[in-house]
């Protein structure tokens, strides 16, 4: 229904556009300069007037109609619902809708059948009303718009204004979504902290979220001290940055100041392909190639390396974030004005002296923010650590042992069927909130640093 009406509206839009444009051409009498606005603006103006009100109505109706229908059914069947609890009433409505419009029905009875009948009655009536109103809006809008078309009509301003409103609406959608995600994280986390004290979560040294089904089972209490996860995350991130920072930065310097134009044009996209490899593929690589390699090498020199180690995960993650560091650093190094390079060369400095003493200090804020962005990317990375770092919440800083990270635990907490009122499941939201907070702060710092850096040269 919705789709059919949408397609009809698109057709209205196209027809109205052609109509408006051709009317404008007729008004110009063959001399386009007589029109205030171009015919295309006239076309858009008529099209917007015809299609936009009907479209807005369709959106509002689609959201509001089911709610109103529910209310009406509830009003009609007060007697049947009087004895039900809130979830039972919801189940009743759900089943009635399923009977009326198709779907999975729990069980059926006479009252539900009646409610279903009522539902489809409402649906038919409202759809008819909707179509009639939309048609009236489209015709009326289109008619009024064509009536108001004159050579002097300032349709360009109208179209530009509508464009702006559309753009604002789209940005608002994006912002509201973000706010919604954050709010849901916060509310679920509050529920978690009602079960587990905040201090225990942040400072506890024991992580063992498995709660038993029966009270007499071993480990039934569950422990929610997240410190081992934080330490594990920190350890792997540190290893990753230790790999990515030097390799990324030095390759960025080579690309920006040493490489020839042709080599640079070829090498930069190749380096950026690294960023396009799915992280799950990096995960295979870490778990099947790198981790066994480290274990064998470790054994050869007499070290005990567990088959899933922080080192393997950290190094592969470091390789994954090299393009972030190198691409962003390359951009900021290139943004350092050529005049500074010339100035330094003109004093008899060699290339490497110029880079060490002039370019890098000048680009340092940008490089730091590139590193911070890479760090926040590494902290949020999941697949590699799931596959290569293990699940054991060891509190250790030995990179040869298995550790686990915040993201890995979120995954394991939510895998499979879950009850969404146990501390175990809710812990995932608390961890998610911490993760979100940390990366938000890091990104914020990085952006601020970049901004201050930009002001220096622009």
């Amino acid at each position, binding site marked *: 229904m919705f789709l059919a009406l949408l397609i009809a509206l698109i057709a209205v839009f196209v027809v109205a556009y052609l109509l408006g444009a051709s009317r404008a051409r007729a008004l110009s009498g063959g001399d386009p300069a007589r029109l205030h606005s171009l015919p295309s603006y006239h076309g858009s103006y008529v099209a917007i007037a015809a299609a936009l009100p009907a479209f807005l109505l369709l959106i509002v109706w689609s959201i509001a109609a089911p709610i109103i229908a529910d209310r009406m059914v509830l009003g009609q069947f007060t007697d049947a619902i009087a004895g039900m609890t809130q979830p039972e009433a919801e189940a009743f409505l759900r089943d009635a809708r399923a009977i009326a419009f198709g779907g999975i029905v729990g069980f059926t009875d006479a009252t539900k059948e009646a409610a279903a009948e009522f539902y489809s009655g409402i649906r038919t009536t409202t759809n008819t009303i909707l179509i009639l109103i939309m048609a009236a809006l489209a015709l009326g809008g289109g008619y009024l718009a064509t009536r108001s078309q004159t050579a002097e009509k300032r349709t360009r301003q109208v179209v530009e204004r509508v464009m702006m409103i559309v753009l604002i609406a789209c940005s608002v959608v994006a912002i509201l979504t973000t706010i919604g995600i954050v709010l849901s994280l916060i509310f679920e986390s509050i529920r978690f902290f009602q079960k587990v004290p905040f201090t225990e979560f942040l400072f506890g040294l024991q992580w063992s979220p498995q709660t038993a089904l029966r009270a007499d089972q071993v480990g039934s209490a569950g422990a929610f001290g997240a410190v081992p996860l934080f330490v594990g995350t920190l350890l792997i991130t540190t290893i990753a940055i230790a790999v990515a920072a030097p390799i990324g930065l030095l390759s960025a310097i080579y690309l920006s100041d040493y490489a020839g134009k042709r080599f640079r044009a070829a090498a930069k996209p190749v380096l950026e392909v690294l960023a396009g490899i799915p992280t799950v593929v990096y995960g295979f690589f870490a778990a099947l190639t790198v981790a066994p390699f480290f274990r064998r090498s470790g054994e050869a020199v007499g070290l005990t390396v567990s088959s899933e180690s922080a080192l393997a995960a950290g190094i592969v993650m470091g390789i994954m974030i090299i393009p972030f560091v190198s691409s962003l650093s390359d951009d900021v190094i290139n943004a350092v004005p050529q005049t500074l390079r010339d100035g330094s060369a003109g004093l*008899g400095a060699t290339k490497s002296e110029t880079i060490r003493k*002039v370019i890098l200090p000048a680009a340092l804020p940008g490089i730091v923010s590139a590193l911070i962005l890479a760090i926040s990317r590494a902290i949020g990375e999941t697949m590699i650590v799931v596959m290569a770092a293990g699940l054991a919440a060891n509190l250790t800083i030995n990179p040869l042992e298995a550790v686990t990270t915040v993201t890995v635990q979120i995954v394991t907490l939510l895998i499979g069927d879950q009850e969404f009122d146990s501390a175990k499941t809710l812990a995932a939201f608390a961890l998610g909130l911490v993760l979100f907070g940390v990366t938000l702060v890091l990104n914020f710092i990085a952006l601020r640093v970049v901004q201050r850096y930009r002001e220096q040269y622009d």
Partner: protein
Amino acid sequence: MDATITTEASPTEAPAPAELVNNQKMTARKVDVFYGDKQALFDVDLDIHEHQVISLIGPSGCGKSTFLRCLNRMNDTIDGCRVTGAIELDDQDIYEKSIDVVEIRARVGMVFQKPNPFPKSIYENVAYGPRIHGMTRSKAELEEVVVTSLQRAGLFEEVKDRLESPGTGLSGGQQQRLCIARAIAVSPEVILMDEPCSALDPIATAKIEELMDELRTNYTIVIVTHSMQQAARVSQRTAFFHLGYLVEEGETDQIFTNPQDDRTHDYITGRFG
């Protein structure tokens, strides 16, 4: 100084005054410059005399900046740029293979069109050159070099209380004098200036011009300028470039009052360019 090279830069040149003969600091002979396939300079012969200011003038794109950048091999940094012919500094070909370009640039300093102080403190800007060339043995010595250079560039009095503040915070004219101080600090023999005043207001320009006249006692200066008044004010000799050719070179007074070539005459009277 070698006394055997005689001046034959241009057949139209007026005879140089007796005391100036045979004191060439730099000589260019048959210099051609190519950017890729495009030739930017054709067969340029020019002498640069010690302790003088020589102006290179000419319309945009005439090759005067290209020639200037040949004198300290700054063209090396441009991809596809090729220089043929001979450019000598104290009778030593600076394009010879055995020559260290770093040493050439230390001896032939450069000041650019747009002031380009490093994003460091005023002190560090001036100390940069001496540091990379290892010219000083102690902190005290370095400080002395910095102060002397700033004094010679006429900037010391204005900045002596804030040597640690960033060089980029100075005004345009002060920045340009800082760049001159930075160039002086490496004790060059020749200073190249590529339109050093084009980004400055008239007062800052007057200061730099004054400075050039003082610097002439210790250094040899080559300046590219679009302002013929500036060329007339600051230089002893003037060379006019047009379409990649050196058209005429001679004493500034003679070039501006009695040019030998019609094109020079047309340019300085404002008929083109």
